[in-house]
Each structure stands twice: as C-alpha cells, then as structure tokens.
C-alpha cells in the first residue's frame, strides 16, 4: 500500500511539466487532484516512510512523505487549482491579457512546487521548494510588465527572498547544527538541544523568516503582489503562496519545535501577541482600503495570523484549528478574489466606491461574495466558523482570555470591512447608471468557479468533523 503512494508522490512533483495548452494543463490539474485523492484513500491519515531522492549533506536529503497536514494542504491546493485554471482561462481571454503560455507555465510550475512543499519530509526539502515557489511566482506577479507591476514584483521578491535567506536559512542551519537532523518528527526534534531565551530567538528567526506567512512587519509583499492578474492573486496569494507560508509555520511548530516543547518553554508567547496584533492591525488597515483587492490582501494578512496564532497557542486544539483554517480560509478567500476578478472582467472596476448597485447586475458574483465573506467572518453554517471555534477553544484551554477577545473583535472587524460591499452592491443604486440595466454577468468561465467555491464553503461546514478527525494524528501523542 505504501509503494504506490510513494510513487505517486514523485509523480506529482515531476509530472507537472509546464504545458502550453490549456487543455493539457487542465488535464494535469485534474490528474494531480485525483492522484492526491488516491494517496488519501491509500494512506488515510497515517504517515508514510520518506522517499529519499538525493542526499545533499549527511542527514539532509531531498525526501518526501505523506502526513495528514501536508495531504490536506495538497488536496486544497490541487483541488482549487482546477477551478482557478478554468477561471484563469476565462479571465485571461476576457481581459485580452498577453503571454498566456508563460503565464500558465509558471502557474503549473508553482503548483508543482506547492506539492513539493506539502509532501516535504524534512525542513531542507521544504525550504528548497519554498524558494522555488517564490521564484516561479515572480513572473506571475510581474506579468503585466508595467512599471507598477515590476515595482510590486520587486517588493514581492525582495521581501520573500530577503526573509527566507536572511532569517529562515539561518534558522534551518542553526537547527541542523544543534540537532544534526532536519527531519519532521512527531513531537519535535529540538527538545533537549536548546533552552532558555535561545528557543525564542530561534522561533523568531523561523517566524519572521517564513515571510510568506505575512506576519507583520513582513506583510508588505502581499498588497504589493496584488498587481498580478486576479487568478494569480486568487490561487497564489489566497491559497498557494500564503498557505505555503502558514503551512511551513505549522510544520515548524509541530514537527521541529513540538507543541509540548513550545508550551513548556513559553517561547511562543511573544509570537502569540504579535499574531494578535497582526490580526487586529491588518483588519483596521483593510477598512481604509478602497481598492477591493488591496482590502482583501490585508484581510488575508489578518487571517494568516489566525493560523500563526493557532501554532503559537501551543495547544493541540490551537494547532488543529490552525490546520483547519488553512482549508477554510482558502475556500473563502479564493471565492472573494475570484469575485473581485469577475467584477473587473465585467465592468473594469477595481474600487469599492465604484461598485454601487452592481449586485443587481451581477447577482451570482455578489451572492458568492456574500457567502465567502460570511465564511471568513466565521458565521455558521459556513466552514470558517469551525476553525475559529477550535482556535477559541485552544485559547480557552490555555486561559488566554485576551486572545479570545482578539478573535471576537477581529470577527467584528471582518463584518465591518467585508459586508459593506455586499450592501452597496445590492441595496444602493448608482444614480449615474442608466436605470433598468439588464443582468450582465461576466463570462461563464469566470462566474462559475466562485459559485462552486462558495458552495464549497457551505459544504465544509458539514464535514468539519471529518476534517478534524483526519488532522488529529498530527498532534496526537505517540
């Protein structure tokens, strides 16, 4: 049972050769998703033996294995890839963007690096694919080739490469220097090798070094990257890139430090406060943004910190909630981004203040937006409510009442910055627009995917229990 699973893991990593034609890419997307599902049915929520490809240094391999958290991440990323790809085809054609081949090639390559991250069995492999992901998404961000796009892409690359090489690499080498291994091990590998304030410093190197998790003050790249075409923003910046960041964060927390070790030493306490600050501050900034994508970007910064917070709480509930939030937030945020893109394709409007009355013209888009927004806010019966629930339980476990307050306040802020758009779209009428405008949705390929993901948000609510069971081995005691 292990062998086919292992073989498929390698397949995923190597099969996603950039294909120039949409159809083939789509097939690859579906195939990837099916393969991941096959692994799911073969492996369940166990952990496989690592498959070693190369040995770089003694104790450091390029190796892959399957474990629940990574599998979840892979399923989310590959599943949403299919939808985004369909959406991307519609968007790129609808907007007459250039360089389709380069765009989709980089896109597919980015996804294959995401698979590499998801199935990496040690920190080194993860780091390798983490860097590749940054490099492969750079051309996507700079896609428009305008001054603004180039500047945004430069910020993007500068911060991500800067933090990863400047801080994360140091942390990785440090870990290797004191433990002699970088394998992800249940319960962590650092215990007994390091103590006192050094734990907090090492954690800081990781937390800030994983720039993709957009922890303040290293969040600037996310809004900057919003110059990219919307499918890129949707998949890469709501799903793949940022999720790779928080996924790495969770991996480090759970498998390098170990939740118990973090709890004992209290080294993650400052991180918790910082995450809390990020949550609130980014939400407040989001309220001031009129550009819809920029608002969503800051909302992402805030939501990512939920996951970091989950890890920093250093309880199993917190970590579970963090893991679950990867899936929930991905589903919700991709809906919102695709809706933003859909509005842009149909009307070329990017600012919220211009969107008055659009809800009546584009009911499906705005309906999907509403559902996505509610899920982000965390209202039942939508998926987002469960992960937030778990996080709150985690915070209550450790008696961090302030954190519960932060989570609640953040939900209110979410309401304040997400819902006005819906209200404006549906209930206000634009005095300048000609009255009685007929429904004018964007093309089918553009509005269908967000509708599907919106339904996905609802479905996730009912399957949250399964998801929790599935993830629970990552924090279970041996």
């Amino acid at each position: 049972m292990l062998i086919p699973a292992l073989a498929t893991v390698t397949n995923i990593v190597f099969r996603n050769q950039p294909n120039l034609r949409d159809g083939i890419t789509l097939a690859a997307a579906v195939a990837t998703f099916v393969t991941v599902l096959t692994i799911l049915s073969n492996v369940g929520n166990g952990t496989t033996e690592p498959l070693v490809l190369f040995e770089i240094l003694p104790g450091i391999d390029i190796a892959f294995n399957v474990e629940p958290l990574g599998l979840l991440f892979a399923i989310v990323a590959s599943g949403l890839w299919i939808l985004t790809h369909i959406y991307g085809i519609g968007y790129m054609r609808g907007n007459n963007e250039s360089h389709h081949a380069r765009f989709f090639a980089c896109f597919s390559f980015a996804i294959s690096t995401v698979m590499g991250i998801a199935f990496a069995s040690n920190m080194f492999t993860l780091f390798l694919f983490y860097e590749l992901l940054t490099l492969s998404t750079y051309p996507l961000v700079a896609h428009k080739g305008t001054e603004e796009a180039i500047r945004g892409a430069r910020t993007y690359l500068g911060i991500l490469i800067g933090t990863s090489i400047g801080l994360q690499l140091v942390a990785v080498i440090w870990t290797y220097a004191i433990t002699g291994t970088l394998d992800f091990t249940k319960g962590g590998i650092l215990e007994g090798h390091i103590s006192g304030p050094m734990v907090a410093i090492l954690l800081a190197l990781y937390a800030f070094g994983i720039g993709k998790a957009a922890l303040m003050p290293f969040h600037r790249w996310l809004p900057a990257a919003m110059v990219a075409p919307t499918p890129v923003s949707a998949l890469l910046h709501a799903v793949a890139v940022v999720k790779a960041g928080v996924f790495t964060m969770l991996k480090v927390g759970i498998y390098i430090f170990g939740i118990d070790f973090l709890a004992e030493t209290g080294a993650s306490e400052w991180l918790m406060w910082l995450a809390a600050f990020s949550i609130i501050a980014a939400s407040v900034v989001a309220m001031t943004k009129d550009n819809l994508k920029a608002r969503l970007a800051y909302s992402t910064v805030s939501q990512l910190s939920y996951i970091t917070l989950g890890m920093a709480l250093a309880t199993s509930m917190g970590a579970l909630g963090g893991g679950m939030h990867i899936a929930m937030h991905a589903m919700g945020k991709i809906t919102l981004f695709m809706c933003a893109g859909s509005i842009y394709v149909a009307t070329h409007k990017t600012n919220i203040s211009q969107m008055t009355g659009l809800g009546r013209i584009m009911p499906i888009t705005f309906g999907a937006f509403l559902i996505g927004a509610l899920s982000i806010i965390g209202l039942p019966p939508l998926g987002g409510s469960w992960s937030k629930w778990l996080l709150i339980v985690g915070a209550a476990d450790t008696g961090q009442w302030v954190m519960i307050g932060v989570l609640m306040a953040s939900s209110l802020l979410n309401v304040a910055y997400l819902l006005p758009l819906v209200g404006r779209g549906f209930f206000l009428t634009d005095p300048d627009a000609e009255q009685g405008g007929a429904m004018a949705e964007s093309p089918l390929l553009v509005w269908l995917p967000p509708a599907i993901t919106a339904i996905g948000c609802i479905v996730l609510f009912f399957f949250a229990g399964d998801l929790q069971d599935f993830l629970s081995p990552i924090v279970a005691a041996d």
Partner: protein
Amino acid sequence: MATETTHHVAMTLSDHLPVLAILVPFVAAPLCVLLGSRSLTWPITFLASAASFVISFLLLLSVIDGGFISYHIGGWAPPLGIEYRVDAANAFVLFLVTGISTIVLPYARESVKSEIPERHHTLFYACFLLCLTGLLGVAVTGDAFNVFVFLEISSLSTYVLIAQGSYRDRRALTAAYDYLIMGTIGATFFVIGLGMLYMATGTLNMADLADRIADQGANRTVRAAFAFIVVGIGLKVAIYPLHLWLPNAYTYAPSAVTAFLAATATKVAVYVLMRFLFSVFQPSFLFEVNTLEFMIIPFAILAMFAASFIAIFQTDLKRLLAYSSIAQIGYMLLGIGLLNESGVAAAVAHLFNHGITKAVLFMGVGALVLRSGGSFFDRIEGMGKLMPWTSAAIVIGGLSLIGVPGTAGFLSKWLLVQGALEKGWWPIAILVVLSSLLAVIYVWRIVEAMYLRSPASDIEAKEAPLSMLVPIWIMALACIYFGFATDITLTASHTAAQGLLAGPVGLN
C-alpha cells in the same frame, strides 16, 4: 592511508600522470605556433586541454580518499629535486581548471572569431595553452619556487590574452598594462618572501619548508616572509583592497578569456594562498591566527559587502560580474579565516562552485555581446525574448550566484554558515546571508533587464550559435547537478580541508 609512490625509474604511463597533466598543454603550445596552420590550431588546443582534463580526473579519483601522490621530476629526490605533489585539494583544482578550459574552448572558437582578427588566432590559442600550463603547474607543484615560475608563466600569458580584447575595445590595452604592473608587484613580493624563507631555512620544497619552519619556530625573518608572501598572493587573488586590476581586466578581455580567467585564475591563487597558510606555515603560529582573524576576515567581509554594493550600481554587465567575483572571493577568504574544517571545506567547495557559476555567467554574457554588440545594460534589454536559451542559462547562473537551494552556490554557502556557527560566530553567519541578499539585487537587475524590458530597436539578435550554447548549457546544468549530487564536491572539499588543516604533518 598514504598511497605514496616513489619511483626513480618510471614504471608505467600512469605513474607520470602528474607531470603529464602539465606537459601536454606545455608541448602543445609551441606545436601550435610551429605548425603555423590555422586550421590545426584549435583541434590541437582542444585535444591538449581534453587530455589534461582526463588526466586530472584520474588523479582526482586516486587521491579523493585522502592519500597523495608524490612525483619527482627527473628522478631527483626532494628536497633537492623538484617534487610534484597531488592531494585532494590540488587534484580538485586541477579538475576544475582543466574542466573549465575544455568546456570554454569550443565556446571560444566562435567568440574568438568575432572578437580577434584571424591572423592572431594561432598565437591566441598558444597563449591560452601556456596560461593553462601555468595554472596547472601552480596547482600541482610541491616546490615553492616552482610555484613562482608557473605563476609567471600563467601571468605573462594572461597579460597577452587580456590585451587581445583591444580589437573590440582599446581600453583592453590599459587594462592589461594595469594588470601587468600589479601582477608583477605581486610576483615580486612573492619571490622576496620566498628568498627570505630560503635564507632562513635553506630549502624550497614545501614539505621540507614546513618542517624546518616548525623546528625553528617563528622569528622575524619568517614573519616578514609570511607577510610578503600573503600580500604577493593576495594581489593575485584580488583580496579586496588589492583587487584594482580585476574589474578592468575582466571587462575588456575577450569574452572567452574572461570566462576562463574568472573561473580559474583567481581560484588557483586562492588555492596557493591556502597551501601557504596551512601547509607551509603552521596555523598554530600565533601571528598567523592573528593575521587570519584581524586581517583576512575583516577584509573578506568588506569584500562581500563593498564589492557587492559596487556591483549593484554597474551599468556594464561584465563589470558587474567582475565586482561580484571580488565579493565571492570574500566568501572563500572567510572560509579560510574560520580555520575549521567546515570553513575550509566551504572555501574549497566555493572555489569549485563559483568557478562553474561564473563560467556560465561570463560565457552567457559573451554570447549576448556577440549578438547585441555590447555588454551594457541597454544592449541586453529584452534579450529574454530574442535569445531565450542564453538568457535562461544566465538566470540559472545567477541563481547559483545568489545561492538558491538546489544550485551549486547553495552548498558552499551552507558549509560557510555552518563553519561560522561551529565557531559560535553567529554574527558572521548572519553577515554571510545578508551579503547574499545583495547578490539578489544585482542578479535581479539582470533578470529584469533581460525579461521585462523591450529590446533596443536596432538590435536584430538571434539565438547564439550551437557551439556556444552547448558549453553554456553544460555549465548551467553543472550548476544544478552539483546542487543536488553533492557527493563529489563534498567529499573532495572535506578531504581537501582535512589534508590542508592537518598542516605539515599531513604532508609527510
């Protein structure tokens, strides 16, 4: 473990390998000139270089597990006779130098045709072979004075090679002249140092020197000799404040020469520096430790930052890469200065990895120059579309220069940081990674220019000829290959580091 083979009578051809590696190009050089046939010159040069490469590879294989080969020229036993001594450190250097020259030569054929008038081709290749001979000789010899002789052979032919760039840009002449002056000062310092050592010890064989210096301990003559030798070689290495000859020389030399020199000449000099610091003098001498900690390391860090900063603001691509070379030499020196196994292994590994990385970059830029007529940034804009293969190879080289994981450059940087952490010098580890961020900036300037700008209207460039593309891509793939399959580099550099750090004991 020593596989010493002492023959006064040569038994088989394979016993002569150390000397053959040098003799082949040495004999081929006058052969080219004497035959005087333009059509034969290139094949002879290539064959000679390829033969040396095979020999070096065999040598590397036979010493990679820690032994060494001692070869006595003419059967005269050292310390009176001249000894060639091959161990992991210099076999690795031989492997690099001959490998680069064998790959650069096919590339050079097309590039030289466009940059140098045909009547000079024979002499050009003869000089190239002499330069190769000199570099190999420096690496392989175990005799201190012999180092000087070969250093001069390689330097003199290098001056000529650089001056050949004058057909493209007259400034090559002043660049060569600068280098001539600086190089000669360096050689003079070196030979003065050797003279003092000879005065103090009465021998010139390295192993013998090491013994006698260890016996008599440090005295003023030995210290003065040490200073002269380090500064003399430092000029050749282009240690930061002694680097002034390098940017012009690399910028104005013919593209093939730049690629060859950047990948080999300074690397051989770094090797000589290590040989003298670790094998001839003992690291245990207090004055040497002081030199390393208070001189070499600060200058190395200065090089890493200052030269990278200067590189960021260059408008000429070749000059940018030249400054980046100076910065990268800083990494090697830092590794040496760390004085532990990881550090020295990092220096040796970086010597190799940076060699192949810079070979890709300079060859790639040479190809751009061939098609677009200049190496200034405004001439390379939009080349990503016009010359996709060349540009992609340059990107790979650039990534390796930054040290992105999965490329050769990453491995050496990893070892270096590890070496610094082992010493507990974590600020230095952080400085290393910070300075590689500067590399991100200048590499990304190249990438943006190539891919995100549109080409100047008068450029009608097409892809470089296959004879250039193939060598470029062999090197680019090597950058990736050695990023994953680290067996060869890692074993060789660790063995080399152990051998070097063991000092004179390891030599006997």
